[in-house]
């Protein structure tokens, strides 16, 4: 495993922003179900203690769990660089940032799908989500291609992302979602 410079860079950028993030939660390393539920529990507790409204806490948990779920299920099993997950807060926004290694095939699929979804309107995303929930075919593990749509529908924002090549069949997928802070 090599040092995660992607995570370091993003954390530094977050600290350098015009309106710096006053609170950050960062998770680095392998994911499993227990770590995912523990992470969500810590974030919930943090937001609750900061006085965030129930709706914002719930939205953050639902988006966060979808991102972590995708990272665990679709990330490279023998990744060169560890995955990371970060929730940063300031007075204006709550930002969820994530990074993990994906295969070349997944990198191409994600780039194509996210470019298509990011070009759609909020209403278009809602319609697509409903259609996929109603008619989407379940995979062997019960997923139906709803993860990205769910994140977009709940945040009502684009998923910002970049894909960086690490080696021939491995890319680092960095993404973030920004939620308006209505604390």
């Amino acid at each position, binding site marked *: 495993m090599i040092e995660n410079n992607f995570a370091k860079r993003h954390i530094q950028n977050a600290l350098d922003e015009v309106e710096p993030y006053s609170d950050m939660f960062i998770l680095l390393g392998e994911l499993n179900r227990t770590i995912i539920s523990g992470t969500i529990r810590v974030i919930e507790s943090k937001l609750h203690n900061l006085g965030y409204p129930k*709706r914002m806490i719930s939205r953050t948990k*639902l988006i966060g*769990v979808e991102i972590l779920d995708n990272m665990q299920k679709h990330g490279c099993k023998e990744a060169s660089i560890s995955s990371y997950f970060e929730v940063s807060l300031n007075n204006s926004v709550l930002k969820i940032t994530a990074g993990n290694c994906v295969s070349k095939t997944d990198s191409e699929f994600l780039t194509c799908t996210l470019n298509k979804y990011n070009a759609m309107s909020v209403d278009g995303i809602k319609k697509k989500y409903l259609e996929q929930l109603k008619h*989407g075919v379940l995979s062997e593990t019960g997923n139906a291609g709803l993860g990205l749509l769910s994140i977009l529908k709940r945040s009502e924002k684009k998923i910002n992302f970049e894909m960086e090549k690490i080696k021939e069949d491995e890319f680092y997928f960095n993404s973030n979602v920004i939620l308006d802070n209505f604390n």
Partner: protein
Amino acid sequence: MEYLKIEKTDFTPEVTVDCDKGTISIVGICIPEDAVVFFEPIIQKVDCLMQNKRQIIFDIYLEYFNTGFSKNLLALFMKVVELDSNENSKSKVIWKLEEGDDELRESGELFEEISKLDFEFVEIPQH
């Protein structure tokens, strides 16, 4: 007595299916690794439920869930809707949420819109 109980874990909810009472209760965190496997025993119990009771009452109180769970929960609702139409009955979902949690209310409303099941939203006060 036909009864199913699945104990809760850090990432799956407590589930009880009571065929005598005609109830299905799902309470807790819902992020199973394999949602199809998780729902299998519940789906199997629905037929037995409908043999005993004409109406099924769902008691749903979710903390948070992933989309794999959503899709399978909707499939469960749609199975009940299909059985309802065959039996001329009207099942119902009691969708519980913490007071002020409009995000989970909207999720319930989406299930209501798609399934056409009768939903009752119950806000649980937090202290």
